[in-house]
């Protein structure tokens, strides 16, 4: 195995890592602020992909408009789930298990709803001219133009969201609520607004991630959010819950790890990819039980 081969795999991992990174930030923000594993996040992602698909295929919008449709679809789904599942559920101050089950119910319900409406088949995801093409470098590495786009957009978004969470008033309010909701309320921070901000940001990123997934793999299915959602949640835990840049970095680590696992081992082993991801998680949790980076929240 040569350095050239490794570099090529690194490039191949760009888009998969980006998809995971964008999703992981969503998991980490919502877990940080509500203490809740938002299982429906994978479905918010899936709805974004369907919104883009519908807008481009049926409403005959342009691809950039489709990207905004994906974001709009994800945001709508995220806010509706917050309004009609989590808010009424959390209002009664239930046990953690109750919210957990409600979240799982929302996830299962949405996945089944889309399976019912659109069938379980794969649909081709739209693409645009500027995403096509392959660049070949002097040393013989091939780079897909779409992977560069996905990586570029992801880096901009990750930096943007990190700065937002760290330095703006709304972002600081969000972290305050995540750290201690009661103390935050005492100093006049509106907890409900902070929760909405978290859902809004998480859903926007999920929408972008959905477009990245569609462009990268070329398909949309109602169950597309399940496996990748789990992987992204693992990334969120690895990155230290609540830590936005940490989640992004962990997303790339998992994405790269998965690609390398498939690339380096004989083909017979590639079906064992989930085992590998979980083994990686167990290993890291065993060595560092709170994740790779510092969790940005109170220890729950």
């Amino acid at each position, binding site marked *: 195995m040569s350095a050239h081969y490794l570099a090529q795999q690194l490039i191949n991992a760009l888009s998969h890592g980006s998809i995971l990174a964008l999703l992981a930030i969503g998991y980490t923000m919502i877990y940080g602020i509500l203490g809740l594993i938002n299982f429906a996040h994978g479905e918010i992602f899936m709805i974004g992909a369907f919104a883009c698909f519908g807008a481009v295929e049926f409403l005959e919008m342009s691809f950039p408009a489709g990207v905004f449709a994906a974001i709009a679809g994800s945001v709508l789904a995220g806010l509706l789930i917050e309004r009609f599942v989590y808010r009424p559920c959390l209002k009664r101050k239930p046990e953690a298990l109750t919210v957990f*089950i409600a979240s799982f119910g929302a996830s299962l319900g949405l996945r089944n709803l889309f399976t019912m409406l659109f069938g379980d088949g794969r649909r081709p995801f739209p693409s645009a001219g500027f995403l096509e093409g392959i660049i070949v470098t002097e040393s013989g590495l091939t780079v897909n133009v779409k992977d560069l786009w996905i990586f570029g957009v992801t880096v901009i978004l990750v930096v943007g969201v990190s700065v937002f969470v760290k330095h703006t008033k709304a972002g600081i309010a969000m972290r305050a609520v995540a750290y201690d909701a009661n103390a935050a309320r005492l100093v006049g921070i509106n907890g409900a607004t902070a929760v909405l901000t978290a859902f809004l940001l998480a859903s926007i990123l999920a929408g972008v991630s959905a477009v990245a997934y569609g462009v990268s793999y070329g398909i949309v299915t109602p169950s597309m959010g399940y496996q990748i959602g789990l992987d992204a949640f693992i990334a969120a835990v690895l990155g230290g819950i609540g830590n936005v840049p940490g989640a992004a970095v962990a997303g790339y680590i998992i994405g790269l790890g998965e690609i390398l696992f498939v690339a380096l081992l004989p083909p017979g082993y590639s079906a064992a990819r989930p085992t590998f991801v979980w083994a990686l998680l167990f290993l890291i949790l065993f060595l560092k039980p709170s994740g790779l980076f510092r969790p940005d929240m109170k220890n729950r």
Partner: protein
Amino acid sequence: MDMNKAMRSIAGLAALIGLLFLAETFLRGYYLRLVILFGVTSIVALGVTVINGYTNIFSLGFGGPMMAAGYASALLTLPPAYKSAVLHLPLWLEQMQVSFPVAMLCGGIFAMLSSVVLLLPAFRLRGQYFILASMGVTIVTGNLAENFRSFTHGDMGLRSIPAFTNIWWTYGILVAVIYCIHRLMESKYGRALAAISRDPELAGVMGIDIARYTMLSFAVGSFITGVGAVLWVHLVLTMNPKAFNLVYVFQIVAMLAIGGIGTISGALVGAGVLTFGAELLAPVQEGFTVMGLRIPPVFGLVNVLMAILLVLIMIYKPRGIMNGRELRMCRRKKGDP
């Protein structure tokens, strides 16, 4: 008083045996199977109640041990001819064919051992990290079962497993399990578990060995879920890596949440709601006519409705339908806990 209680228990058992006899005589095919499936699901739900309901940890890892039990029992009871044709097993395992009770016992013990081995390292973790790790156990076991083809036949799964599970086995074991859990919870062991689940720190200060009791309840619960898995395998007659996957695990946990976690009645009510609920809703998705208006069939509607029901129960009945209460055959005296 005690005589009275014993009489009631005997009367209750006699009534149950009568009902089962009627069910076996008059219910056929699909409906009889549904009744058996309810019994099997209840056993699994009760096992998970012991694991999750009576301790202060929450595990989604019971799918792994159930998978181990299911495959163990299938491999122990399949005819050697089938095994040699489909699988590549060590000779002693290929030749081995045991009776149902032995297979069931082996399945239970296998589930218990694998649960302890798989989850022992995870006890280092707390809170969401433990949930995540236990979820991983279920996913990884399924993934391993897909890849160890010589033992499991991969995705294709094992077929033509002998049909042993009938209404008598199922409900006999169910009654035994209910009795055991009931006795267990009234014992010193059960009191210690109750103390741990209320306030682990206080329990620790009182001198209760938390790790030991948690481990014990894990072992007992896993044994019960393992027996449930064996019954399930010999009812459904196929075993594949997706049999006890995360969706199955969530269904069981949802049953406990619907019925109310931590009680025997809660597990039974939850299992009943999810097993029969899907059946009652089935006509809805096949299309019907309301006041001359033809509603077209919508397949998959039942799953959506069940999910909505689940969310609604979590919102309006967060502690489940039974709300932590236990149904009793005789009312307790005032002052009893």
